[in-house]
């Protein structure tokens, strides 16, 4: 019996405003509110709200046989709360149907998994807390930012309590193996891996509206037939897309909504079911183990991390950023912590890539900078201000460990004082 896992990643970055170096130390607000609000408004209007409504209808009309999952970053949830609380409500409605699963993912859509273990753990926890608070259920399956994955990450994630991980079917890791099975990680055999079918996913994501594509137009019937035509023993189809694929990347006029609406009918006809990651691993057992010595992801042709940390600019920015992690963890200023999450977004580093930059034109879409150098400069100006703020919290002359000890002492003494005060009160009475 074949089954389809439809997963959507929902994320919106915080765009940085143009931040000149003479503002360092003077201006501590880093974001382009107009760009953020309008990007959010466009996504909500063209995609999120209507897609949510559509999925809700599909779940209801199929009596819960249609299932879907979401991996929503903390930053996206933050922006929903700020700009479009109605989206949260519509996700809550979806959650109530019981046919929807929410996946764990780093709060800041960050590369923390590669740079700082403490921060990584913290972010996954933050996001899970927020999901639980909003949707009433704690995630059990993990999907990293950009499906970032390696043996090391597999082990880390498993120890954090997530026994299933979504990964990309990177050729250099999969080799001849098919994405249509459940695998386990070689680093921790108990960690189960679900592999995204990049071909089928990208058919919907990138090729659906391309009339130059030889398979255009892609109908639900055709799509299900492809799934059905695979060998009988290949049973798990993980379709993982950015949620913007419905309505934004593929406009309403392309017929993307109708495509999704028709999927369950054709699937049920062929005896193909819909599932969620956690249900899938209950039904299917791992057939083999996979090993990824080096980090891999779902970006670009290379399916590696070179789009985020492939050049000197990116490495400098990331190193400077994560050098701060320990200090920031010791701080308690809530505004500082907020900025800390927002500055870790993978997008900031993607903008600095020189891979897509030639003949003076930035080839990758949606990059708000003229060149990688501009992106780097702007980010570093912001980061310089942020570093000053972090350093202003506690004297920089004190080492982190020493500071930690001092803070603990202060905290303990505070507690003691409180205790003594209350004792004093009692005795006075």
């Amino acid at each position: 019996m074949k089954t389809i896992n439809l997963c959507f990643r929902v994320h919106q970055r915080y765009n940085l405003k143009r931040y000149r170096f003479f503002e360092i130390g003077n201006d501590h607000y880093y974001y382009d509110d107009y760009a953020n609000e309008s990007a959010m408004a466009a996504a909500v209007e063209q995609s999120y709200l209507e897609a949510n409504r559509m999925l809700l209808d599909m779940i209801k009309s199929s009596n819960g046989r249609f299932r879907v999952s979401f991996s929503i970053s903390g930053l996206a949830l933050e922006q929903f709360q700020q700009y479009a609380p109605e989206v949260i409500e519509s996700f809550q409605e979806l959650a109530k149907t019981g046919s929807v699963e929410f996946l764990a993912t780093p709060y800041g859509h960050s590369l923390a998994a590669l740079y700082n273990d403490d921060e990584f753990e913290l972010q996954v926890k933050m996001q899970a807390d927020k999901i639980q608070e909003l949707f009433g259920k704690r995630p059990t399956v993990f999907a990293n930012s950009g499906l970032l994955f390696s043996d090391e990450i597999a082990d880390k994630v498993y120890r954090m309590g997530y026994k299933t991980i979504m990964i990309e079917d990177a050729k250099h890791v999969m080799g001849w193996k098919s994405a249509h099975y459940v695998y386990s990680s070689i680093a921790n055999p108990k960690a189960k891996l679900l592999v995204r079918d990049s071909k089928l996913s990208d058919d919907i994501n990138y090729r659906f509206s391309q009339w130059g594509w030889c398979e255009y137009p892609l109908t639900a019937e055709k799509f299900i037939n492809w799934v059905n035509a695979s060998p009988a023993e290949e049973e798990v189809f993980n379709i993982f897309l950015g949620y913007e694929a419905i309505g934004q990347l593929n406009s309403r006029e392309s017929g993307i909504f109708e495509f999704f609406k028709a999927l369950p009918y054709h699937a049920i006809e062929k005896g193909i079911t819909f599932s969620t990651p956690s249900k899938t691993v209950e039904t299917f057992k791992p057939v083999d183990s996979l090993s990824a010595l080096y980090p891999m992801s779902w970006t670009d042709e290379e399916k590696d991390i070179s789009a985020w940390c492939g050049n000197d600019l990116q490495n400098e920015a990331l190193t400077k950023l994560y050098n701060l992690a320990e200090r920031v963890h010791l701080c308690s200023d809530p505004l500082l912590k907020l900025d800390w999450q927002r500055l870790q977004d993978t997008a900031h580093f993607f903008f600095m890539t020189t891979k897509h930059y030639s003949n003076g034109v930035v080839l990758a879409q949606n990059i708000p900078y003229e060149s990688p150098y501009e992106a780097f400069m702007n980010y570093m100006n912001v980061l310089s201000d942020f570093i000053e703020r972090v350093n202003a919290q506690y004297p920089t002359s004190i080492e982190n460990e020493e500071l930690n000890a001092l803070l603990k002492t202060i905290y303990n003494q505070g507690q003691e004082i409180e205790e003594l005060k209350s004792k004093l009160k009692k005795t006075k009475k």
Partner: protein
Amino acid sequence: MKALMFGWEFPPHILGGLGTASYGLTRGMSMQPDMDITFVIPKPWGDEDQSFLRIIGANTVPVVWRDVDWDFVNNRIGSFLHPDTYYHFRNGIKYNFNRIGTNDLGCIQFSGRYPDNLLEEIGNYEAVASVLAHSLDFDIIHSHDWLTYPAGIFAKRISGKPMVIHVHATDYDRSRGNVNPDVYRIEKEGMDAADHIITVSNLTRQTVIEKYHQDPAKVTTVHNAVEPLDFVDELHKSERKDKVITFLGRITMQKGPEYFVEVAARVLASTDGVRFVMAGSGDMMDKMVRLAAKKGIADKFHFTGFLKGRNVYEMLAESDVYMMPSVSEPFGISPLEAMQCGTPSIISKQSGCAEILDHAIKTDYWDIDAMADYIHAIVKYPAMYKSLRENGLAEIDKIRWEYAGQKVRAIYDKVLGR
């Protein structure tokens, strides 16, 4: 393929970018085995590199018949021109140019510079062209910049061979829009008469099409390139406390020096350890000295005066940032030279070279904040400097005159219907 080229300058005695570009282009074209270039300039000095082309000095070509014997000719101009060639040219005199003042050899004295009687020199150059057109064998005529267009036109009329003109600059660039009507007329006549027009950037191409009303199909861009530096290993950057930001070029309106001073003031207001250098000379130099003093940055803002030859590269190599805020630059070869030395460049979007450079910073010439910000970033964030330097070196290595020469050759073939 035999090309007869008319130029005005040729290294080592050059006054501007035209000579450098002429040298690079002809050298690049000479890499094609069947390319035979004759390059005419008003006044050679005798120390030009003639290993890959033949140089003819217009001041050794007789335009008025004089009865002189072999030894006399050999004595006078033998080091430039073989006396037999002199007699060969003399047979090519078909018109009466007695109105022009000539010397005892029947040759015209050229200054080879840009004198006050420039228009007269341009006319005289035309006379020389007529003699050459009658006595030389060539397939195509190639004129570099407006000074040589009339010569090219005359040679074309006489020989019936097609003419290609090379627009290194237009008067719109030089004058910020206030064109000299005489210059415009000569430029326009040259473009009208040309079989094909080569421009050094799309920016210039647009000017040629819009301001000189040329058919776009007749205008092709061939970007300039740079010659590899053979002494690049000898250049070095000394260790010093302060970072150096350099402006290098003629200090004239076209180059936007006042923006450089403004940027310096903006950066110095909040950044330590930075010095600014304005190298070169020009009619706006005194004004810039006063402006720097007025801004109160004279202690960190330095002038070097005119630099030439190797000093230019040494200055570039010692710099941390090279800046060219030109208001209008048909091409602008100096950022490429800076990148050859491994120095990151900030250039204005209004320069032609911006069209082919990825790893140079591009801003609008008036965007002082952006330029200041980039300087701060290059000086303060090491990865920025390192990336621009390394990517720049790799990029510049691929911009070669050889490739530009091939493009010019393709145009020749097209014009000749080959």
